[in-house]
């Protein structure tokens, strides 16, 4: 059972990650295949501080979660971001 739960957690986090990458790709017009889970999303998307807020709002609206900014301080890659979102779903 614990193994199943871990597999489920992994599966849902992967799904969240996939949705983040798709959302970022569409909105910031970067080909989906160029975005890698462990990549620095600031560099990958070429976004500034205002666009970072835009991304944060889009993620909150998409996943219907609240993401306090301070929880995302220091988060730079898509995979960690997915974990933070997953924790609030």
């Amino acid at each position, binding site marked *: 059972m614990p193994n199943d739960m871990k597999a489920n957690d992994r599966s849902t986090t992967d799904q969240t990650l996939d949705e983040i990458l798709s959302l970022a790709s569409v909105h910031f017009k970067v080909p989906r295949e160029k975005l890698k889970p462990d990549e620095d999303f*600031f560099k990958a998307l070429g976004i500034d501080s205002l666009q970072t*807020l835009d991304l944060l709002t889009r993620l909150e609206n998409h996943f219907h979660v609240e993401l306090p900014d301070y929880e995302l301080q220091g988060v730079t890659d898509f995979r960690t971001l997915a974990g933070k979102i997953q924790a609030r779903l």
Partner: protein
Amino acid sequence: MKGLTSEYEGKALSWQVREGVIEVALHRDPCNELGSLSLEELEKFADAFEILQQEAHALILHSDLKAGFCAGADLRELYQRSQAMDKDEALKGVRDFLERIHFVLNLIDAAPLTTIAAVHGVTFGGGFELALACDLIIADKMARFCFPELRLGLIPGFGGIPRLKRDLGNAVVRDLLLTGRSFNATKAQQIGLVSQVVGEGEALTAARATAAQVGKFDRATAIAAKKFIKPIPHEELRREIDIFCELFSQPAVEAGLKKFVESTEAQPYLP
């Protein structure tokens, strides 16, 4: 009423009267930062308001810029000016700026017509405070609100705390002020700050529809109702200016401003 009063095209803002509604558009790059230029033009608006309001039943404040409604006070200007002056002179300048912007925001707050802030994107600090002076806030779903002032060693200085406390209560003020976190339009509607959340790019359209609706009521009745339910918290507004000026004298503020101005971080509004 023709000529300069009914329409104005400035560098930071413009206004026009359209179907009984005064529409004020902010348009100073990068995100309508409120500095000396914006204040001068807001004061021009305040001067014209006595005449403008005679043929209007509503006022809409909105931004023409994609980045958002308003990113707040022009901190770069504040930092650069305070660097060029001695401390007493800088403090005097800050108090003068606050007194002047309070005058304009108090005028909007108590205006004898229905005032609507149509917001999108960044609505931070002084921009949030500008929206709070209005009777209604209509937000597009990409709007984001924040009181980031504590990171600078300051409190909001344009009337934000007294107005938010008046409208929503002390607990909301504490959460937003003490954490410095930003929150979206959905959350803003949940806590009662925003009256309508609309699709991306639709806030002005929704504000115009709302302004048309409020125009159907007898104006004298609407004015009496507003006066009854929306008292101006003058004493707390005065105290806010004093506290802001007391804090502005502290060394932490200069360090906070310097850090912000020089920051290349993705979330420069966080400490």
